[in-house]
């Protein structure tokens, strides 16, 4: 059931529970109140009755006291004596009685005398005394009879003269006293009760009776007082006699009405042992009344009249407080219930409204609309739930978007896949590589492309299902390099077994491929038999080449060594010749004629030339001898050394700009610059020689230049001068060995540069050479390049 119902039920339940408790409490308190009230009413009734009784007793005692009066006694004994003397007292009495009756209101002198005698006078004064005292005739009538029952004194005319036939007279005579029920006394015209007391003479013998008619006003007063004293307005007191007749009631009843019918039927049972002293009763059409009752108690001397005093109070009044309480409770209950309802409603709403919102949102989500905006202002659990729900919806949205994106991607991938499968098949069949697809567990061929088929020379239907060992692969079963030996076959040379049993060299790569959902091996291979052949041929060639190179190197070395040794060996005799020539001139020059001396001089020059040539050869050969290592050369310092070595004549100035450092062997750099500059010095033909050395930057190269204002060179010689042993001047003019520029060129070309000359015959020449800024592995060209032959 719904929360609202639950809440309502809950609250209602609670309220009902409270109501029930309240009701039970009310009932209980009502019962208690009833009992209490009933009992207190009974007590009240008893008290009232007591007071009535006491009152009456009082009066009885008054009368009793009076009965002891001397005068009364005297009169009574007198009367008694008189009567005793009569022959027929009864007849006497009877006669008077008849008279009494017949005469009605008339008073005979006898009668008057009865009420006028001294005793009567006392009686009257007594009566008046009380009359004055209380303001009303307390005793309506008092008279005394003798023991025969005849009136002897009376306050007023009684109805009868003879009283001995009256019950009261007899009762008084027998019991000592008598109190009658309340009755209407005709003589005194009052509601009264008769009190008769027996008079005894001094011997204790019955002598007469005194009767007083007590106005029950006192009783009534007492009853009225009781009522007045009560705070209950509806309290009614009813005095009921032995016969069930109402003697007096504080209201609403006729005298002597039957209590059974006037009040309620069972009143007499009240107060009996075993029964409660109160009861509630309702007469049809009338209000409910609680009756409490008291019986007259019998005192020692006095049995009591047997009266019952009933109190009756409207239960409505008794339970008015209860009713009040009930009303209050009801009101409170109602207000609590309404408050509860209100609270319940508030709670209900605070729960159900957000829940309804949440539910709406969930419905939205279930319909696929994730754009909920569930804002909750409260921070209670439901608010948190809403917040979490919101997050969840957002996350769902995101996840769905991601999923959708992924699905789109997947779809695309799928179509791509289909496409690529088709492409794959096309590729497989058209590629120039042979392809096998092999099941790694069973080593059976699952698929092969046409190139593979052709290479192996076995048709596809035979290939598929066959085991690859010893069929297409040289490996033994159990020694498969991939599955057993865990090798990686990647571009490795293997052998393919053809159908004819031949081994075909191939380059094979094996990778894994997922084929039909399972891992397979993809073998791709290329026939390299042609390549192999070429490789072998190449190897042979290489070997030959190496051999040749070794031989060449060896002979090259030998040659260089030869040149070196030869040069050295040549130098000595050359020097010897020169020395001897000197000595001849020195020692025997005088013996020669001019021609002889000239010849010796020519001899010496030739010797010098040989020496220079040999030096040049040595230099040239030396360049290739040692393996140059990279060396940073400071050209500025080097220039100083070179100029120092060359020692130009005073008229020749060698000016060097600031030169950058270069990477080469120092000897080479020295030789290079020295060669060119010494040439310039040697051939200087101007009186003031100027040789300028400088450098220009040309990208990755330095372009050095050595400029002189010498004789210059004709263009047709530009190439030749760089060849070995080529000199331009004739053999007799100062000359060089002819190796300088060849050496320079060799050095420049070792370092990957170029050398050339620009010249104006007569003006001068500029020699240019380039040098790489970076280190370059030196290149040795063959000697033929430097030779002119």
């Amino acid at each position, binding site marked *: 059931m719904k929360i609202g119902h639950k809440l309502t039920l809950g609250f209602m339940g609670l309220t009902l529970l409270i109501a029930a408790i309240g009701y039970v409490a009310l009932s209980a308190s009502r019962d208690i109140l009833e009992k209490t009230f009933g009992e207190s009413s009974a007590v009240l009734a008893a008290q009232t009755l007591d007071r009535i009784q006491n009152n009456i007793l009082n009066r009885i005692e008054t009368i009793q006291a009076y009965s002891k009066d001397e005068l009364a006694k005297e009169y009574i004994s007198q009367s008694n004596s008189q009567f005793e003397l009569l022959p027929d007292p009864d007849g006497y009495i009877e006669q008077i009685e008849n008279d009494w009756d017949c005469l009605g209101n008339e008073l005979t002198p006898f009668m008057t005398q009865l009420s006028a005698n001294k005793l009567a006078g006392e009686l009257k004064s007594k009566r008046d005394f009380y009359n004055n005292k209380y303001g009303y005739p307390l005793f309506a009538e008092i008279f005394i009879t003798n023991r025969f029952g005849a009136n002897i004194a009376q306050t007023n005319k009684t109805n009868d003269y003879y009283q001995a036939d009256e019950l009261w007279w007899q009762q008084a005579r027998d019991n000592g006293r008598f109190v009658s029920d309340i009755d209407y006394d005709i003589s005194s015209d009052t509601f009264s009760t008769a009190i008769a007391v027996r008079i005894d003479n001094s011997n204790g013998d019955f002598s007469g009776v005194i009767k007083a008619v007590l106005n029950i006003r006192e009783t009534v007063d007492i009853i009225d007082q009781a009522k007045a004293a009560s705070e209950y307005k509806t309290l009614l007191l009813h005095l009921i006699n032995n016969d069930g007749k109402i003697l007096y009631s504080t209201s609403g009843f006729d005298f002597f009405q039957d209590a059974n019918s006037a009040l309620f039927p069972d009143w007499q049972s009240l107060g009996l042992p075993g029964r409660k002293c109160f009861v509630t009763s309702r007469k049809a059409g009338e209000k409910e009344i609680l009756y409490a009752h008291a019986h007259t108690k019998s005192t020692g001397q006095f049995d009591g009249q047997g009266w019952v005093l009933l109190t009756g109070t409207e239960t409505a009044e008794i339970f008015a407080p209860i009713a009040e309480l009930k009303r209050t409770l009801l009101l409170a209950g109602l207000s609590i219930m309404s408050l509860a309802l209100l609270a319940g409603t508030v709670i209900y709403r605070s729960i159900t409204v957000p829940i309804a919102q949440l539910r709406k949102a969930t419905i939205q989500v279930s319909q696929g609309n994730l754009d909920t905006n569930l804002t909750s202002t409260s921070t209670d659990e439901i608010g948190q739930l809403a917040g979490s729900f919101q997050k969840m919806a957002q996350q769902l949205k995101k996840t769905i978007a991601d999923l959708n994106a992924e699905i789109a991607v997947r779809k695309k991938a799928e179509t791509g896949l289909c496409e690529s499968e088709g492409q794959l098949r096309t590729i497989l069949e058209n590629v120039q590589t042979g392809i096998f697809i092999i099941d790694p567990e069973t080593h059976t061929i699952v698929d092969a492309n046409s190139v593979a088929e052709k290479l192996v020379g076995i048709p596809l239907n035979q290939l598929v299902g066959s085991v690859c060992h010893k069929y297409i692969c040289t490996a033994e079963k159990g020694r498969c390099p991939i599955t057993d030996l865990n090798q990686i076959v990647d571009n490795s040379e293997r052998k393919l077994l053809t159908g004819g049993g031949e081994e075909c060299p191939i380059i094979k790569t094996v990778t894994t491929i997922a084929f039909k959902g399972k891992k397979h091996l993809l073998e791709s291979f290329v026939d390299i038999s042609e390549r192999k052949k070429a490789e072998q041929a190449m190897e042979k060639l290489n070997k030959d080449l190496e051999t040749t190179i070794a031989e060449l190197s060896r002979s090259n070395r030998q040659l260089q060594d030869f040149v070196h040794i030869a040069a*050295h060996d040549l130098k*000595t*005799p*050359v*020097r*010897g010749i020169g*020395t*001897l020539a*000197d000595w001849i001139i020195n020692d025997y020059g005088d013996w020669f004629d001019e021609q002889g001396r000239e010849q010796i001089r020519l001899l010496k020059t030739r010797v010098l030339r040989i020496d220079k040539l040999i030096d040049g050869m040595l230099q040239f050969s030396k360049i290739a001898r040692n393996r140059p290592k990279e060396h940073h050369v400071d050209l500025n310092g080097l220039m100083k050394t070179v100029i120092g070595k060359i020692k130009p004549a005073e008229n020749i100035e060698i000016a060097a700009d600031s030169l950058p450092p270069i990477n080469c062997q120092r000897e080479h750099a020295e030789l290079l610059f020295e060669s060119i500059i010494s040439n310039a010095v040697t051939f200087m033909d101007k009186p003031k020689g100027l040789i300028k050395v400088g450098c220009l930057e040309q990208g990755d190269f330095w372009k050095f230049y050595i400029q002189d204002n010498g004789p210059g060179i004709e263009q047709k010689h530009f190439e030749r001068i760089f060849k070995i042993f080529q000199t331009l001047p004739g053999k007799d003019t100062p000359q060089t060995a002819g190796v300088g520029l060849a050496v320079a060129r060799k050095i420049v070309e070792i370092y990957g540069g170029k050398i050339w000359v620009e010249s104006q015959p007569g003006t001068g020449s500029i020699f240019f050479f380039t040098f790489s800024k970076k280190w370059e592995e030196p290149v040795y060209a063959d000697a033929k390049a430097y030779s002119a032959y």
Partner: protein
Amino acid sequence: MQTLRPILLIEDDSVDAMTVKRAMRELHVTNSIMHSVNGEEALAYLNDPVNEKPFVILLDLNMPKMSGIEFLKVVKVNADLKMIPIIVLTTSKEKKDVVDSFELGAAGYMIKPVDYAKFVEVISTVMVYWGSSELPREEVLMINNKR
């Protein structure tokens, strides 16, 4: 002054030897010049206790049987001989030869000029220097010799 002690010239080329001697003559060097044509002969001479130890050795490098370098090696480990200053007198300009010579303890390295006049200058320089240099006395040498 080392006027008494000879100069040992180890040179295989006759003309070169003649050149040295002639140069010494022109320089008026009075010390006797002992000439060996190769390293072996020179060693034999040096090791012969009869012979006077030279005050300086002029050594050529390119020689048959035992090259100058080999001679250097042998002499410079010889306690008797290693203190004699050896000037290498050669045609070779090879840096390697220079390095090797000095590594082996040569006291100098002179390149024989082709021109005689220059040659004389070189010899003059050597003589002037080594002639005035203090050298270990023979007594010291003799003490170290175990005779």
